């Protein structure tokens, strides 16, 4: 299980290559890559701040939950911090399980957590200046799908 923050751009494909290599009993690998949208020019740069050490530890607690809940063989989470340009990957999540249902659901679960409750602070630098942003109502609703299930 790896959880990493990266100050520099990364290639989700290289992460998937490393993650899927040499798995003879895994069967299923699901991934999600979140990319910075240009919003047709409305967002020039996204800036993400983490609390190094604390952020990884908090993500690690949810990752442990996901491993147990979905019977994962392994998972990887890589998250950009710092200034991110349009089209650049922000987050990469990979999950490995025996069967596809568990791999998909765990990846979905982890993304819902990361988008709504992980310790990141996000600023959008657009043509009209910068603003801090919070999770959308949809992000909260997505995460709540998992409560009590």
């Amino acid at each position, binding site marked *: 299980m790896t959880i990493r923050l990266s100050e520099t751009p990364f290639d989700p494909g290289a992460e998937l290559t490393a993650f899927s290599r040499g798995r003879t009993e895994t069967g299923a690998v699901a991934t999600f890559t*979140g990319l910075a949208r240009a919003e047709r020019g409305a967002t020039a740069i996204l800036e*993400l*701040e983490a*609390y190094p*050490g*604390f952020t990884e*530890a908090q993500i690690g607690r949810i990752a442990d939950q996901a491993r147990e809940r979905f019977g994962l063989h392994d998972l990887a989470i890589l*998250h950009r911090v710092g200034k991110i340009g349009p089209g650049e990957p*922000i*987050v990469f999540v990979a999950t490995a399980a025996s069967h596809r249902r568990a791999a998909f659901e765990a990846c979905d679960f982890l993304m819902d957590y*990361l*988008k*709504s*409750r*992980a*310790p*990141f*602070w*996000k*600023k959008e630098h657009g043509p009209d200046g910068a603003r*801090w*942003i*919070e*999770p959308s109502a949809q*992000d909260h609703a997505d995460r709540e799908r998992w409560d009590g299930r």
Partner: protein
Amino acid sequence: MARVLLFGPLRDLAGWRDREVEAASLAALRGLLADEDADLGLALGGPGVQVAVDQAVVRGDAALTARSEVAFLPPMSGG
């Protein structure tokens, strides 16, 4: 001298990101920061602002030592 860290909008409001502050407890630290900057003092007690001492979230007061790291965490944006 506890080390104080501010994140997200709190940092923009305060105009600093980390500082050393002499305080024996979290309550004393909050008082000192509020005396210096009333807006920041209010914001640190605002809705959804969590406090971590040595990377563990604490509620209420907590004793601080000279090597404590105190982080004020405004509502998280998610990734």
